[in-house]
Each structure stands twice: as structure tokens, then as C-alpha cells.
């Protein structure tokens, strides 16, 4: 357990605090969450905290924040990929005039020799500028989320699964008889939702804007991660299983009590009816490791939402039908040409967005997302 200083902390004590040093280095999400919250509690001592941060940064000789640097790396990779797909889009247009199915193979081999990413080998600042220019002209519509999202509540009803893609790019799959309500004005900087039932979350990473899931008993706060929550109001057991990243589960019943989960851990909470004098959070909350069964690579907690998808030279229209049935999301394709694009591949345990992105790589198309609908076009 990490000991946080009280209001009477002195600057030296803060500098010597190991967890604070970790926070300054951006070494883990856990420390990031803890200290940001702690700082919010002492606005009048802002200058002292800034002084402590400055001295730590001098002494660690500006090693920087790993979280921030990782963010920069991720956006570098995104630009690299956008640039690549801009190039492949161009070459596709020139190849596509008359392609018979036999020539598809030839086209694929041609794609292999298309211009490579030379610029990144030089100065990185220049490369990013070039990538940005291309982005501006050939911006692929990966995530053109519609601006208006009239519905703020989604329910699965009797359906086995229902998938919703939120404005910030996070993907939620609801289990049977579950629902989510979006916080007012939900967007990429205001990420709060209320869950009743069970759902699987694949949250878009954003260290500066935490994603909060409220349930009857707990508030679950995440930065970017995949996890599963079971919180049916009438069930005695509430579960949070974490697959990737970090989440913090804060108890509503015991204000101030929280648990930080690591990947492949599960938090179970027995929902005892009332708060009695002897009830203690430690007795109700239990952390366990997810069972790793070599025969089944997917932990049982998320097996309901993950699946192997084998595609062998199928047209997009058939693939879309399968995706629609499995994920419980409506997919509309406009344009006969796109419907007949053929793909082969095996997808194991991917979210719908990742599956579509992977398909895009071998034969580009555009897709737009609007809540529980996906529109595919050329």
C-alpha cells in the first residue's frame, strides 16, 4: 500500500518519496492516477509540489516521463501507418482499372514493392511534417465518428451481444440484458458512463482523460485498457476482470477504499445487503488471478466476447454479415464494388474495430462509426 503524505508535507519529504519519484518519471499508470488525485486535494500547496517536481527532474537529469514518451511513440506509429496507407491508396487507384480475380495475386505482389517509409530514417521532425501533409490530403476516414450522437443509452435486451463504439473510439460490448448510459456531453475529454449488467470494454488510451465506469457498488477508473465488468443489480457478486493496462476500482460503500488491478487479475466483490458494524472492505473484496488454461488461450471471463474468425476468400458482404451477427452491431455497406472485395485471413480475439482495420490493410475501404452502427464505403 502506498503511503500518501498529508497536508503538512514538506518539500524534502515529497522529493524523497519513492512513489512521487515514480510519478515524476511517468513510470506507471498507478502512480499517475494516485498523485494526480492527491494533488487535486491540495490546490493551495501547488507551488511546493512544483518545486519538488523541479528538483526531482534536475536530479534525474530530465529522463522524462515514460508515459508521455510512449504517447509520442504511439502517435509516431499512427502517422507512419497513415502515411503508408496514403501511399497504398494511391497505388491502388492506378492498379484498379481492370482487375480480374487472377490478377489480384499480381497486384498483391506489386504492393510489396511500393515505396517504403524512407523518411523516418532521417530527421524525425521533418518526417512528421511530411506525414502530416499527406494526412491532410489523403486523410483516411478511420474514425470519423459522427458529431451528433442523439442516443445516450444503449441496451442489449435479449441479444447475446451488442457492440457500441463510443465517440472517443472506445469499444463496449454489452452482454445479454445489460445497458450503458453515457454521461451528459460524453466526448473524448469527458468519458463517464453508467453500467448495469455485464460488458467488455476496450478503452481508447488517453492518459490525460480517464474513462470512468460507474456501477451500483463501485466506480472503475481507467486510462486505456481492456477489461470485463459484471455488475447485475440483482446479483450478489460483482466482478471486474482486467486483460490489459491498469484499472482502479473505488468502492462506493467504503469511501476512500480502492483497489488497483494488474493485467490478468480479477476483483470479485460480494454484495452483502447492508453495511453492518463488523463489515470490512477486505472481507468483501477479493483479488484473484485469471485462470490460464493452456487449451483455451482466452480467459473464461472474456470468452463470451472473443472468437476466432476464419475467412477464406470471402466477399466483404459475407464477412460483414458474420461480424454483424457476432458482435451485435449493424453494418451497412454502400457500393456494389466494395461488397465484392475479397479477403482471406484468420482473426483471433480481436475487437470489431481491430478486425476492420486489419481488413483495410490488405484492401482499403473507409468506414464510419456511429454508436451501434458501422457504415462501410469505398
Amino acid at each position: 500500500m502506498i503511503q500518501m503524505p498529508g497536508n503538512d508535507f514538506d518539500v524534502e519529504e515529497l522529493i524523497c518519496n519513492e512513489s512521487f519519484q515514480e510519478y515524476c518519471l511517468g513510470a506507471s499508470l498507478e502512480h499517475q492516477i494516485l498523485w494526480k488525485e492527491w494533488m487535486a486535494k491540495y490546490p493551495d500547496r501547488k507551488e511546493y509540489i512544483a518545486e519538488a517536481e523541479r528538483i526531482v527532474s534536475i536530479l534525474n537529469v530530465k529522463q522524462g516521463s515514460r508515459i508521455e514518451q510512449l504517447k509520442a511513440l504511439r502517435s509516431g506509429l499512427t502517422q507512419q501507418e497513415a502515411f503508408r496507407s496514403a501511399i497504398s491508396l494511391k497505388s491502388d487507384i492506378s492498379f484498379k482499372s481492370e482487375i480480374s480475380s487472377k490478377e489480384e495475386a499480381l497486384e498483391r505482389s506489386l504492393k510489396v514493392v511500393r515505396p517504403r517509409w524512407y523518411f523516418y530514417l532521417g530527421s524525425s521532425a521533418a518526417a512528421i511534417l511530411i506525414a502530416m501533409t499527406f494526412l491532410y490530403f489523403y486523410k483516411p476516414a478511420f474514425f470519423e465518428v459522427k458529431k451528433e450522437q442523439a442516443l445516450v443509452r444503449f441496451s442489449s435486451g435479449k441479444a447475446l451481444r451488442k457492440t457500441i463504439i463510443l465517440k472517443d473510439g472506445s469499444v463496449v460490448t454489452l452482454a445479454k440484458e445489460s445497458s450503458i448510459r453515457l454521461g451528459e456531453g460524453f466526448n473524448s475529454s469527458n468519458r463517464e458512463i453508467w453500467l448495469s449488467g455485464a460488458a467488455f470494454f476496450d478503452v481508447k488510451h488517453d492518459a490525460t482523460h480517464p474513462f470512468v465506469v460507474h456501477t451500483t457498488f463501485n466506480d472503475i477508473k481507467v486510462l486505456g485498457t481492456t477489461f470485463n465488468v459484471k455488475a447485475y443489480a440483482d446479483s450478489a457478486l460483482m466482478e471486474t476482470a482486467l486483460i490489459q493496462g491498469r484499472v482502479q476500482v473505488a468502492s462506493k460503500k467504503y469511501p476512500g477504499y480502492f483497489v488497483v488491478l494488474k493485467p490478468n487479475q480479477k476483483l470479485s466483490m460480494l454484495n452483502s445487503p447492508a453495511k453492518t458494524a463488523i463489515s470490512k472492505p477486505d472481507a468483501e473484496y477479493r483479488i484473484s488471478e485469471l485462470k490460464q488454461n493452456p487449451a483455451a488461450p482466452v480467459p473464461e471471463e472474456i470468452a463470451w466476447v472473443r472468437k476466432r474468425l476464419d475467412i477464406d476468400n470471402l466477399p466483404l458482404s459475407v464477412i460483414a454479415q458474420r461480424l454483424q451477427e457476432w458482435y451485435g452491431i449493424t453494418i451497412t455497406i454502400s457500393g456494389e464494388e466494395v461488397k465484392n472485395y475479397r479477403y482471406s485471413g484468420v482473426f483471433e480475439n480481436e475487437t470489431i474495430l481491430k478486425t476492420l482495420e486489419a481488413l483495410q490493410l490488405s484492401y482499403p475501404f473507409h468506414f464510419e462509426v456511429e454508436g451501434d452502427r458501422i457504415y462501410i464505403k469505398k
Partner: protein
Amino acid sequence: MGLGEDDHNYWEQMRLGDKQALFELYNRQYFQLIRSGLKINADDELVKDCVNQIFLNIWDKRERLHPVENVRAYLMASLRHCMLDQLSYLNKTNAALSKMLAEEEWNELSYEQVLINIQQDDDLKEKLKIAIRQLTPRQMELIQLKFFEGLSYEQISERTAQTVKTAYNTIYDAIRILRKLLK
């Protein structure tokens, strides 16, 4: 499973196209790379750019990469090359310097040198020089282990054969002196 073996596995996963494995490698190696980069040249922006650059390059050519015995050594070597390229690009006239650095036996900067060189502000550089002289060699050593190498108090106490409490107090006293002098 040893740490090197984990790196090896992540490397193989990354070669197969697993981006998460690339991020795992990044998280595991970030501070080691930054620290050794800073000892070559105390320019934190250059070092950080190069660290991200080598990961971008690795991802870009992942399909053409080979299995690597020692991932850390490979990354360190890549970082050194990247920094040398950048340095010679930034300062073409100073070819002698990069030639010297390219040979294996360049002189690593000491922590004290990095501490001063990394700062742009001359006033702060002076203050740091004075501060370093005020601290005992023992205090300096522990400050380096704590803030540069990132060791825990427990690890420091093992390494320097003293109690955790003594290690903490030594650093605390040093910080008190530094804070006054760096105001």
C-alpha cells in the same frame, strides 16, 4: 524465466507484428536507454528523439529483422548509431568528435557532468556546481543511485551495506542542502 528471455520473447512477438509487444519492450528498456544515451551526450531532447526513432524504425522493418540474442545490447547499439548520425548531421564540421565517439572507447560522462551539462541555464549550472561541492561523496553516490539509476531505498541499502533508514536519512539531508542552494 530471466529478464533477457522475456525480452527475447517480446522481440519475437514483435517481429510477428504484435504492436503490444513493441510497447512492452519500450516500457522495459526506456529508462536504461535514456540513461546510457545521456552519458554519451547530455542533450535530453536528442536522446528522447533517438529512443523513439529506433523503436519506429524497428517497427517499420519488423518483417526484415532477425532474431536477436541480446535485445538490450541490440537496442543500445541502435541508440548509439542513431545519436551519432544525428550529432554528425547537426554538426557536420565536428566530424572528429563523431569519429572519436564511433570508436568503442569513448569516455562516458559522469553523473555529475550530465547533471550540469543537461541544464541550459548558466545560472543554474553554477548553482549545481556549488551544490555538488557541498555534498559529501557518500551523499552524491546515494543521490545518483536513487535519482539517476532509479534504485529503491531497499536496493540502495543492500548495495551500500547500510540500513534503509540510514540511506533515506542520508538522501533526505542531501535534498535539504540542495533545495536551499537551488532556490
